[in-house]
């Protein structure tokens, strides 16, 4: 009838990772940063530094329109936004990326191509929101939201 509880009080002292990873946009050549402009039909290189006290997990990029000014930047700088407008054929990109296993520090060197049109025609230019999400292996996370413009050249 008796219950045996596997209870070991010494375990309490074991190290637990309770620190969030960090997205660093202050490195040299960091791109994009707040208020930067990207161009349709062109390729840009994502330059961001990720760090974590134990081990990095993965990251994702999300680009969506901010024509209604619903998003705001996590950065201190204010950018000039175009007037509010209705989206017709806005561009969307959602992508997740692995980070090699075992790293505490990682600098991205990722090339992303923004197409200029889809089957509905040419994409809307204007204010976009560039969202970066980063996790570490334990599931701690950090986010950055940037106000950018994507234009046709």
């Amino acid at each position: 009838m008796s219950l045996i509880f596997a209870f070991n009080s010494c375990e309490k002292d074991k190290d637990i990772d309770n620190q969030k990873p960090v997205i660093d946009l202050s490195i040299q050549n960091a791109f994009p940063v707040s208020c930067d402009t990207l161009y349709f039909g062109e390729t840009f290189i994502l330059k961001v530094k990720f760090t974590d006290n134990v081990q990095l997990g993965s990251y994702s990029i999300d680009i969506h329109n901010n024509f209604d000014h619903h998003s705001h930047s996590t950065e201190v700088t204010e950018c000039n936004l175009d007037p509010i407008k209705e989206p017709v054929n806005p561009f969307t990109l959602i992508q997740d990326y692995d980070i090699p296993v075992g790293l505490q520090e990682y600098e991205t060197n990722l090339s992303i191509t923004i197409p200029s049109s889809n089957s509905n025609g040419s994409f809307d230019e204007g204010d976009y929101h560039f969202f970066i999400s980063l996790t570490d292996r334990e599931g701690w996370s950090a986010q950055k939201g940037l106000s950018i413009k994507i234009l046709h050249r």
Partner: protein
Amino acid sequence: MLIVGMFYLYALSYGQNKYTLNGRVVDENKQALTGATIYVSPAAKGAFTDANGNYIIKDIVAGIYKIEISFIGYNSIVDTIDITGNKIYNAHLSESAINLQEVVVTDNYVETRKKEESLNIEIVNDDYLKQNMGGSFMNSLERLPGVTTIDIGSGQSKPVIRGLGFNRVVVVENDIKHEAQQWGADHGLEIDQYAIDNVEIIKGPASLMYGSDAMGGVIDMKNRKLPADSTYGGSVDLSGKTNNDFVGTSVSLYGRKRWFFADFRATFLDYEDYKVPTDSVDIYSYRAPLYQNHLRNTAGKEQNLHLTMGIIKTKFQSKFYISNVYSKNGFFANAHGLEPRNVDTELHDKSSRDINYPYQQVNHFKAINTSQYNFGKAKIETDFGFQRNFRQEWSQYVSHGYMPATYPTSLNANPDLELQFDKYVYSGNLKFSYKINDKAQFNSGINSDYQDNRIGGRGFIIPAFKQLNLGGYILGKYASSVKSIIQIGVRYDFGDIRAQAYSDWFSSPVVSNNDTTYQYLQRAGNINGNFSNISWSLGYNYNAEKWSFKANMGKSFRMPTAKELAANGVNYHNFSYEVGDAGLSPEVSYQLDAGLEYNSSDFAIGATPFLNYFTNYIYLNPSSEHNRLYGNGNQVFYYTQCEVLRYGAEIHAHYQLLKPLQVGIIGEYVYSEQQSGEKKGFTLPFSPPASAILNVKYQKQKIKFIENAYWSVDYKLTAPQNNIVPPEEKTDGYQVINVGLGGDVKLKNQKISVSLQVQNLLNTKYFNHTSYYRLINVPEPGRNLIMNISIPFSGKIKRK
């Protein structure tokens, strides 16, 4: 108060002669009172008066006893009697002038319940709720040791007992399990706190009596008050709060003519955005400035109606409870959706009383019948219930994932309806109890319910599902000596859940072999699961003169919820993507509980430790992955199972310093640790930090023209919480002072009860680790003055 009259003066020894006590109970006009209660302690013998007002209690051993005679609507008589031979004790009861809504059972109901229940329980009544009134029903109970809440905004909170909440706590109203959307953290309990006169909180595994989910404990609300024969009455309650300019009123009317009674209540509440002592809030990495300290768009309102009626006869009672609880309240506008949002401050800050997008509305309808039939030693009870919980979340349409930028009109739906849950629940219980003799009692019962859950709205988080639950239990109670009671029980449950497949209403790009095709993705497949479980409990109570001891060992369980089995979508409050697992097994937990208490006339101290082990706790594990097909690349959280060890204790003590002045302390502590799985070594989400309340209370029967006058000061100390899981933040400790005062005044013949509270007296800025808005760094409400005025009235219906 706790120990009034608990003088255990024992008769000399065994082999004593046994005597008979009898008598007659009449009213002031010498009319026989039928159904009055006579209770003799510590012999623990009782009787009811018959049609002629006569009663008889046999086999009382010689000795000195306390006798208590009570009847609804009359002042009770408490006396000491010396039994040295057969004795006649007649009584005439006087009508209680003001409060005709007397409780049915004698005043030591609470004591008796505590002595007979082997789990640790707290019982409070409506006076307690008024004196400690918070923003919601659960807020008002939060002061109790071992009880905390998960709050969202100022008017919504969920119960947490010893760190367990959501589907691990069962809420029961009038014997029917309250079924809503317990799995979600973003809305409260659909319970009208003005309509409650008695709440029992069971701390510990109570699956035996309450079935699946009662792992952490139970909040059991029973309407125990009944009007006296040939009376009518009611009350008007007026409440106000300064922090969110809350205004509320609750009006009740009741009446009884012989065996029929009815009771009607209406409650209306309205409140503004609540104020926090800060100018801006950091939502993850986004800073949102606040206008005049108002937490933008957290205003709300509530409209509740209740009708109770029934038949009261000596051998048969049947009551109908019909209620509709409606609430509408806004979400903090900057922190709802796929990401922290910019809001139209001009629109939102124009008025602090309006409710803009995003908001939710919940309507909970209930129709319940409870009946009981008494056949001397046997009692049969039946409960039938129907509930409909209808909840909607509204927010401006924002495309996410690959939703079209504008909502297609061809879908013929309102694009702003984000989520909709529509739940129909049919419940039925049958209970049978049989008193074998003075020492042994047998109880058994069957519980059943059937749920039909439908979904709607543009978003998806859980699928539609149907669920059937069936359970049966037997419980034996045996008094092995005058002081000790042993109880043992076993229960079997069966559950069947069928979730319906769900596919997106929009297409998303799927890449395979370098080809991109647009597909309507299936979020959830058809799920067909059934679960069964045997739970049990073994308890012991020992009640000596000043000491009491209780111990309980039990196994409890919980069926996985539809969300845990089949979630596959964005949680708009956490900015997370949640994924269920159809292979989850029912959660099982073993718990050891104890309670030790010392009570003398001016001093009491008690401790209630527990040790708890889950073999397979269902945990929503934040992974390192991201989702690419919905939302905006959100972090993925997976439902997993792991072993969890928890332990903790509550303590309480009070000392009667002077006659009217009492000092006391209440403390609580819980430790939780995951023992296996990916988060081995981590705690559980929303773990309450250790806390203590130091209290001084002054209470006097009469101070000048104020009756039942009191004032009290609570100094609440809370430790920091450094044990966290992602995405939580460590929370600093804090100290808060709450004060309360009140009493009854009489204007001519009209009684008016007033209670005043100042919460957060010093307007301290602090964070509550278990607040839902803690994650986005919203501090707790600033100083809040709360006033409640209660005006009871009553009269007699003339007898013809």
